[in-house]
């Protein structure tokens, strides 16, 4: 709702001016003012406390390994030697694969639902897609183990290997489990998020945009692409970022299908490991202090990576929209 937010700024300014001038003395306003300020600060403090306690608990690992923690790939709890690189790699690659598959699918579905589908069919389909978001991740994981993974092993991977085997991405033995399975299950899990938010964004685009484009002779597709998608661009990117956030942090379903092997391999057929998975897998049985500390540091890294990826994406949006946070100007 980009347009609304632009208007919103103006209205809020006017309101605050008015309240400064006229209602300064009303105690109800002041209480409300304090209440919302407290709410916002408690959220910020909570986030800060989380980061600080993670940093505090991971201090022993930081001291022992320093920067090596980020660039080495040995994960040996017995010898007490820890490196996080394969987990960082696994998290980023599985999420990237997921978005590569999920974004075109979700945007296509959203465009169909918002622009093209007959009206009677829209609510049931939208409802079904949103239902997918409510399925617990362990259910996705089980389904993946018993349906998706065997299918990948017997049909998809041999096929990909035969036709695209010259690419390093599709080489090696077909286990079924691995980075490709993780990316696919993540894609299925983020599609409902991206679709339903994108659909809302597209529905919020004023009809005048469409009418104007159609009025100057644009085809249906041209109108959608130039008037609707462009107008809702920042909202759509927001929807994708929401999906990305879910993909980066997803634990259960990924652990069940990624193969849990802390190794970096170019091939999507090879097993991998993610940051969230290793914490979930090993934290309960970790006994030595350094081991626990290394796992907490992985948690801290996951937080940092998530923030960095989000910041980068926002920067990207900001750059492509020419310095404007919203796309309303174009």
């Amino acid at each position, binding site marked *: 709702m980009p347009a609304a937010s632009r208007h919103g700024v103006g209205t809020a300014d006017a309101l605050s001016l008015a309240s400064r001038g006229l209602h300064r003395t009303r105690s109800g306003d002041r209480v409300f003012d304090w209440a919302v300020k407290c709410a916002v600060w408690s959220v910020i403090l909570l986030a800060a406390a989380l980061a600080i306690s993670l940093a505090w608990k991971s201090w022993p690992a930081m001291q022992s390994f320093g920067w090596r923690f980020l660039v080495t790939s*040995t*994960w*040996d*709890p*017995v*010898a007490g030697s820890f490196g996080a690189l394969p987990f960082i790699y696994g998290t980023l690659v599985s999420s990237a694969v997921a978005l590569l598959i999920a974004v075109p699918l979700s945007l296509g579905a959203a465009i169909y639902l918002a622009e093209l589908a007959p009206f009677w069919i829209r609510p049931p389909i939208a409802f079904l897609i949103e239902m997918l978001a409510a399925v617990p991740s362990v259910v996705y994981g089980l389904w993946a*183990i*018993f349906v998706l*993974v*065997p299918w990948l*092993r017997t049909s998809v991977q041999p096929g990909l290997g035969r036709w695209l085997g010259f690419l390093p991405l599709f080489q090696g*033995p077909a*286990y*079924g*489990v691995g980075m490709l399975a993780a990316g696919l299950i993540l894609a299925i899990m983020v599609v409902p998020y991206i679709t339903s938010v994108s659909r809302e964004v597209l529905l919020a685009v004023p009809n005048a945009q469409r009418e104007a484009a159609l009025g100057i002779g644009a085809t249906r597709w041209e109108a959608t692409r130039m008037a609707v998608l462009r107008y809702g661009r920042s909202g759509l990117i927001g929807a994708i970022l929401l999906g990305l956030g879910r993909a980066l942090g997803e634990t259960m379903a990924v*652990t*069940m299908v990624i*193969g*849990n*092997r802390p190794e970096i391999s170019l091939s999507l057929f090879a*097993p991998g*490991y993610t940051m969230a*998975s290793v914490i*979930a*897998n*090993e*934290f*309960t*049985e*970790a*006994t030595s202090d350094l081991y*626990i500390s290394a796992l907490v540091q992985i948690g801290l890294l996951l937080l940092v990576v998530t923030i960095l990826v989000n910041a980068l994406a926002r920067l990207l949006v900001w750059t492509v929209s020419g310095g404007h946070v919203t796309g309303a100007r174009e």
Partner: protein
Amino acid sequence: MKIWISMIGLVLITAAPAHAQMLINGAGATFPYPIYSKWFDEYTKVDPEVRFNYQAIGSGGGIRQITERTVDFGATDGPMTDEQMKKAPGELLHIPTVLGAVVATYNLPGQPKLNFTGEVLADIFLGKITQWSDERIKTLNPSVNLPNQPIVVVHRSDGSGTTYIWVDYLSKVSGEWAQKVGKGTSVNWPVGLGGKGNEGVTGQVKNTPGALGYVELAYAITNKLPAATVKNQAGKFVEATIESTTAAAAGAANNMPDDFRVSLTNAPGDQAYPIASFTWLLVYRDQANESKGKALVKFLWWAIHDGQKYPATLLYAPLPAPVVKQLEARIKQITFSGKPLLAATK
């Protein structure tokens, strides 16, 4: 007086019904959780005044919590190391409760019964034997038609007591494993795919032709998975059963150390299945609270005697008689400010 304080505390914490009960808190291993819940449930018939609250948070958490004295007893699948024992504020006793075993399960056409030796299993998990048609597997299984297929090794990805037992065994039978990989609840696996939990490993094995993994005996029995027979120290190929697991403890009873921190893998004895282990409760030798200590000791006594009729129904192996005898002496050593607790109750 103390009873009253603990009763009031209990009522406050649990908002329990009118009649007072004592709550004993424990935390730790997930592997024995089903038998512990059964025991805690049955024990309310023996002593309705005592209730147990057990959190199956994992052996690591159990050791941490008992070390910090936030629980009254801990539970672990792997014995505490000397270093961990030193960190505890008092002397911790390991009380074995039941036994578990780990079996090698596989996916081959026709699901033949396979024989393995520890050395061959270790070399497969080290990545040195990669094909089912390897000469060393063939020699052990002359009557089986082994396919010309790569072995897909599957291991647990989550830290677990099952893994501990498995790699403890491999460390004992293979010098190379002990030196390169070692033992722990999670290790740096030379080869293989990680599955989460017994169900993750089983799912992976069932779905992958040529897979070889390991799961708990109880899990293999309930799910009717093929399980390999393994050559024990006495040179016999032994099938994993409740009886052969108990036999492993009986075989080790002659050399049982006082503190029961003993590994039962590769145990002596003709009938002993070699990949077996105790699971332990951890209690302080000198209890901090007299009434709780008394209740706990009475429960432990019950668990190693009357309680031993329940494990087999849940597919755990009960303690053998000689070990129970040795444990009786150990439980009598538990004290409150120097006074033995068990004698006081009798």
